[in-house]
């Protein structure tokens, strides 16, 4: 199936730990994103990559580091996790057309205890 897939679906960890979320798309899209959705459901863009190049880097703590080994993958690594990092993280991709919808992964619910 063609899709954006991200793993894991759920992630529970303790404060201070380091964790990664992986994202892969087999749609051939050049642009990929990471979004954070907080408890109030507000969507905030974190990063955007175009063909492995960082394009958007919003005000995000530098504990968050995206890694794009190739244009089909965009992983998110988080160091020294804090309680406020608890959220749902979405990966998405765009085919590079203005009228095209984003293709979203199913999200990773991160819970920091």
């Amino acid at each position, binding site marked *: 199936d063609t899709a954006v897939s991200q793993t894991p679906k759920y992630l529970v960890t303790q404060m201070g730990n380091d964790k990664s979320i992986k994202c892969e798309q087999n749609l051939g899209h050049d642009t990929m994103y990471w979004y954070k959705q907080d408890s109030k459901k507000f969507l905030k863009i974190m990063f955007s990559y175009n063909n492995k190049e960082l394009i958007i880097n919003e005000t995000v703590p530098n504990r968050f580091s995206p890694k794009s080994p190739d244009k089909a993958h965009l992983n998110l690594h988080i160091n020294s996790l804090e309680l406020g990092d608890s959220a*749902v993280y979405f990966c998405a991709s765009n085919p590079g057309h203005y009228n095209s*919808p984003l293709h979203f992964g*199913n*999200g990773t619910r991160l819970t920091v205890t």
Partner: protein
Amino acid sequence: AQTVTQSQPEMSVQEAETVTLSCTYDTSESNYYLFWYKQPPSRQMILVIRQEAYKQQNATENRFSVNFQKAAKSFSLKISDSQLGDTAMYFCAFMRGGDSNYQLIWGAGTKLIIKP
């Protein structure tokens, strides 16, 4: 900077009724694109409908239609014959034409509950 406002945090209607979700946006651009996304409890993000600003005709997708008022910068979503499966968060989003990052500006969302 562009902003998107959804003034209704939550709405609920009876099954089979028609409901309209409001969305207004602020931009000085003339070329842009508007979207409605749906997020059911499964948390999957699903495109509902999209509208190009240069098109006068309102977009429709089955039971979903928009009322696009460009001068008023309004982009409301109408759901006809609502179904239980329409229960979800609905997000309005704006994309500036010419933005090579294809970045979406999101509204805060409206929680829609369809009651049996």
